[in-house]
């Protein structure tokens, strides 16, 4: 059974062409600049800011991908039938965002091809990155297997494995930062949980955007999709936005209150307009929109909230990844109290490349595959 309803051909084609152009232009500029300047094309430095915008982009898309898969798992693993109509769409979007993130990482690494064999062959089980790569590989393969089953519901084993892999990737992405005791701004056992919550919130935002991109508006949606978009999904979305906002507020208050060396970066973060855009416009406003019963079912407001949340989570990831490095470690008085960092043009183009690849894969997949297919078979 399929629920294929195609309406906004014009919008989809616009996104397709724009993402193709973004991918070609972004990738060409990145490759030319990397070829000519090497990693000097990035504004990262050994002074202290080693992980810049490419890592922000990478983690943003990978964590969002896990959130999308977990949403699909509500249907495929846990049998929450309300989410059946978006399960396959979320899986495909998860694959698209995963690849969008991976391309950013691979172009950031000094030796990307070496990483493909050096990480699995050397078995450094102490390293969170080793486990993250292991889980990401399994996650990618499981996604492909689940998608290859077409509209069929994956078996119990595959469904559980997919859920575990997505959960593992999200938690390990947080552990990569949260286990760093020497960087107090990032350190803590709650960091993996924050990544998980942000992944789910981002996944919901992307699911809303992807669904409206596919159908245009609620009028064109099949009954099941419409019921979900006016029922459970915006409520869950509101809940996850609230949890994410609470985590941001909690971390901010703790950071401002504590006098542990390194946490002074919170004063700098809170003084930035970006932070307030992140919290108030990106989380609180969408939360209000999704909390009010009269507004949470409005398609335009849902898309607005999803866009705001998607941007806010990117800013939040930027603050977290960059903020943890702004206080230099033992560099002496020639180093400033805070490192100044602004992404280079090449870094922005790499972010455009990731976004364009994800958007291109999604819209192309939506054209070619029946992403609205309801999962068939028993749970």
């Amino acid at each position, binding site marked *: 059974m399929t629920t294929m309803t195609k309406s906004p051909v014009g919008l989809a084609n616009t996104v397709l062409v724009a993402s193709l152009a973004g991918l070609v232009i972004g990738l060409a500029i990145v490759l030319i600049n990397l070829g000519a300047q090497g990693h000097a094309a990035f504004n990262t430095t050994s002074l202290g800011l080693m992980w810049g915008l490419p890592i922000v982009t990478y983690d943003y898309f990978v964590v969002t991908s896990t959130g999308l898969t977990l949403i699909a798992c509500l249907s495929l693993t846990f049998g929450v039938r309300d989410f059946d109509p978006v399960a396959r769409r979320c899986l495909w979007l998860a694959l698209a965002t995963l690849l969008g993130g991976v391309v950013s990482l691979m172009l950031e690494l000094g030796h990307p091809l070496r990483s493909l064999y050096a990480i699995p062959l050397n078995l450094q089980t102490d390293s969170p*990155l080793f486990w993250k790569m292991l889980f990401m590989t399994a996650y990618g393969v499981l996604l492909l297997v689940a998608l290859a089953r077409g509209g069929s519901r994956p078996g119990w084993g595959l469904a559980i494995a997919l859920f575990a892999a997505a959960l593992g990737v999200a938690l390990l992405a947080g552990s990569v930062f949260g286990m760093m005791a020497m960087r107090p701004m990032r350190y803590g056992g709650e960091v993996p949980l924050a990544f998980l919550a942000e992944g789910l919130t981002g996944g919901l935002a992307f699911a809303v955007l992807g669904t409206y991109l596919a159908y245009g508006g609620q009028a064109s949606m099949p009954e099941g999709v419409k019921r979900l978009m006016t029922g459970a999904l915006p409520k869950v979305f509101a809940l996850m936005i609230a949890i994410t906002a609470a985590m941001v507020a909690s971390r901010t208050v703790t950071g401002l209150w504590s006098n542990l060396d390194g946490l002074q970066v919170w004063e700098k973060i809170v003084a930035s307009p970006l932070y307030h855009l992140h919290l108030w416009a990106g989380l609180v406003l969408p939360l209000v929109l999704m909390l009010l019963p009269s507004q949470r079912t409005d398609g335009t407001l849902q898309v607005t909230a999803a866009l705001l949340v998607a941007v806010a989570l990117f800013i939040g990831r930027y603050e977290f990844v960059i903020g943890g490095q702004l206080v230099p470690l*033992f560099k*002496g008085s020639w180093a400033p109290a805070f490192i100044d960092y602004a992404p280079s043009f090449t870094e922005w183009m790499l972010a455009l490349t990731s976004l364009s690849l994800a958007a291109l894969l999604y819209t192309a997949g939506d054209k070619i595959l029946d992403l609205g297919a309801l999962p068939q078979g028993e749970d």
Partner: protein
Amino acid sequence: MAKWGMVIDLDKCTGCQACTTACAMENNRLPGENWQDVLFYTEGTYPSAQLKWFPRPCFHCEDPSCVHVCPTKATYKDPNGGFVLIDWNKCIGCKYCMIACPYGVRFYTDEKPVVGGPTGGPGPDIREVFPGDGKRSWNPPWRAPDARDDWVHGVGIQPKGVVSKCTFCYHKVSKAPPGTPDLDEDDPALKEYVPACVRTCPPKARYFGDLDNPESRVSKLIADKRGVRLKDETGNKPQVYYLSGGAGPAVPSTRETVKKT
């Protein structure tokens, strides 16, 4: 096997940076890529402000976080001598070790130049003056003999896309006669095995020896003068100890001593 370690007497250190220069010459470092650095701090405010300095090599920690986080085992703890080294054949340039090092002693040199070039002030980017040959990331004519290049131990001029750091002059120290308690530059039989920064220190503020040998001078100095380690609370257990019992510079307790600009 020895567990090589260093003792730096802060009461003797004059902050002359001869160690920095000697290290750069011995190991062919890029300008600004100071494997061995002397950090300067200002503490207090006018009229009681003080200028302080703090010599800082890689600490070759006993339990190094950089080794734990490296996903490819490129950075590793050499069991023969206790060096923390980087295998440039395995490094993927992820820079996680740089994130995890509490002391900021690692460098990724494929970036905008620290000195010279379009962003580093006057003078050219020296990598453009002496461009790499595919094997090395840059290729100065005054480099050490090719035969001494040792990528497995991070010795020589690194290729592109990898992280570099102080090796405790592995290429010299590892050739010292087994069982040697101290590498003392005053001993003609041993001076060729002494790390460049130790050998060149004008006030003889540095000592290098076997931390596991109770008869070594470094062990005795640590015991007699209560040697301390930088940021010991991180659990990395540096193999570099500081003596600061007098009125001179002390081990900075936090990064708050960094001058605000």
